[in-house]
């Protein structure tokens, strides 16, 4: 971890965890909540607006503005809900998990302040089912707050998911929380108007919520001084892949991408060289090693480079990786996680997997490559949620940035990295679910005709 950077989300942890209330209070914990209790909801929102905190889940939507869209209780006299998205599942991303492990009380303090801002007394934390230990830590932290009578009249329910990437999409999450299959809803209505149980609802990411207490504590204007104007504050970057020191690093937005990999992360492991970087989770467009120079980790810089900061998950890929294999694996992931509601995504992700497998096996042609991109274009913008779109954006970027590699597979009639690729022999999940082993008529592989 960079020693020169002030930590905001992890402040006071000194590299460890603050899971005991007394320890948390000793470093100023709960003082933001006390301050917030003396503020009106509008004053809290104004502070968030001044901070220009933008959503840390990947959409980068201004948090204060999101809260301001929630109608006042006298406008819509229904219960209001705060739902926290702790369904972190974007490949490459593991920051919310570390936040819940190390600063669970700051996170819950943020929940209480956010609930006050939208005039809600009902909070649901939807945590992915795979995070069992994190669930236990949150429940234990919540119990301490309850015993200390810090919850006021607010109830916080920690609700476990059961394994579905799509539930990270906010309307799918709400469906799942309501006891249904996690499939996205049509928008509008947006959750702010009709979210959980058709009531006004704010849905926020764990890191966004955990950043709220420090913002109330230091003031929005002060927070906004950290990082570039359009991407204020710090970010917990998840660094993974072929680096010497992978891990979560809280750094200011605007930190150089190259420095994250080579300074903070210690460079590429095993004396290899960098081939490509996925800068913001698997749903973002890939960058070649040559492209990362001069890029900074903030919204504008990465958008200008044709990609996105996404969930701030940086995956460094070394020169052993076959990009076509990477495409197969990523496509398999989206195919597996597509909820099946929208045909273009359900069928499109399946087609891209089949075409990519064919290309990887050296059995593809230029026409297959064209078809791959054509499928992508036809999925884009035709579905209720971004799952299919982002899968296609990622795959199209592999072709755009590494076209020679795709062509080499076609020309050589095989994988040029055969026997050496770091992804060789990779197996995607084999499900034992009935849904995946249903009648042959439905599940027979599609014939991809070039």
């Amino acid at each position, binding site marked *: 971890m960079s020693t020169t950077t002030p930590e905001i989300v992890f402040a006071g942890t000194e590299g460890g965890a603050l899971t005991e209330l007394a320890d948390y209070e000793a470093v100023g914990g709960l003082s933001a909540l006390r301050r917030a209790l003396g503020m009106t909801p509008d004053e809290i929102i104004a502070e968030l607006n001044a901070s220009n905190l933008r959503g840390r889940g990947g959409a980068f939507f201004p948090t204060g503005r999101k809260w301001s869209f929630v109608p006042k209780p006298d406008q819509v006299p229904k219960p209001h809900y705060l739902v926290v998205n702790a369904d972190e599942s974007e490949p490459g991303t593991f920051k919310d998990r570390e936040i819940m492990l190390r600063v669970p009380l700051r996170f819950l303090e943020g929940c209480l302040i956010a609930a006050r801002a939208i005039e809600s007394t009902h909070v649901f934390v939807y945590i992915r089912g795979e995070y069992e230990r994190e669930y236990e830590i949150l429940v234990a932290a919540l119990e301490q707050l309850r015993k200390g009578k810090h919850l006021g009249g607010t109830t916080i329910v920690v609700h476990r998911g*059961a394994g579905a990437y799509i539930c990270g999409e906010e309307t799918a999450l709400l469906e799942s929380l309501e006891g249904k299959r996690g499939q996205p809803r049509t928008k509008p209505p947006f959750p702010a108007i009709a979210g959980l149980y058709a009531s006004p609802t704010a849905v926020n990411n764990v890191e966004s919520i955990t950043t709220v207490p420090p913002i109330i504590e230091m003031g929005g204007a002060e927070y906004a001084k950290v990082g570039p104007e359009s991407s204020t504050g710090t970010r917990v970057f998840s660094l993974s892949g072929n680096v010497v020191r992978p891990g979560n690093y809280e750094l200011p937005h605007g930190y150089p991408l190259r420095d994250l990999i080579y300074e903070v992360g210690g460079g590429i492991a095993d004396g290899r060289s960098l081939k490509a970087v996925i800068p913001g989770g698997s749903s973002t467009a890939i960058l070649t090693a040559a492209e990362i120079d001069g890029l900074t980790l903030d919204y504008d810089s990465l958008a200008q480079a044709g990609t996105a900061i996404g969930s701030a998950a940086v995956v460094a890929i070394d020169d052993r990786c076959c990009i076509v294999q990477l495409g197969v694996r990523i496509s398999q992931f989206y195919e597996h996680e597509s909820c099946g509601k929208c045909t273009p995504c359900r069928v499109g992700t399946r087609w891209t997997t089949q075409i990519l497998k064919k290309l990887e096996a050296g059995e593809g042609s230029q026409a297959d490559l064209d078809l791959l991109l054509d499928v992508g274009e036809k999925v884009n913008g035709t579905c209720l949620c971004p799952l299919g779109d982002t899968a296609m954006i990622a795959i199209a970027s592999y072709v755009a940035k590494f076209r020679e590699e795709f062509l080499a597979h076609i020309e050589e009639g095989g994988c040029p990295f055969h026997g050496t690729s770091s992804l060789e022999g990779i197996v995607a*999940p084999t499900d034992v679910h009935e849904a995946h082993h249903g009648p042959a008529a439905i599940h027979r592989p599609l014939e991809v005709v070039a």
Partner: protein
Amino acid sequence: MSATFYDEVQTLRKRYPDPLSAVLPALQLAQERNGGWLSEATLREAADALDLTPAYCLSIASFYDMFHTEPVGTHLVEVCTNVSCALSGAQDVVDAFERSLGIEVGGTTEDGSVTLRTVECLGGCGWATVVAVDNRHRLHVRAGDVAGIVAELGE
């Protein structure tokens, strides 16, 4: 399962403004009590407690990856093979488990003690390879660690 399960589900239903929200926690409890999977009888019992049809409960169970509608071993070993883990050698870890357990991915050992699966991203990308053993995550697992994990499961 029993009256206790029924009562526990009623408590879960009361946590939510709409009792339908208790479907996931109720099925999680049902699965845990039934040796890690949801049999038809288990789904019927859960449906009874939830005041839903068994078909509805199955529609939920079949949607989410962590519910199993076929028997699984006493222990469940799940290896993440998404990109970050794969770049770090997840495939070697999978191979080592297959050799050590004498089964293929998706299979269960003959004595019914261990089921081996590969899974999508477990959210531990910087601590690759991540292996979930009965839902507890082992981090930085290498092929060389596999024999030890398998031995532990046999104890």
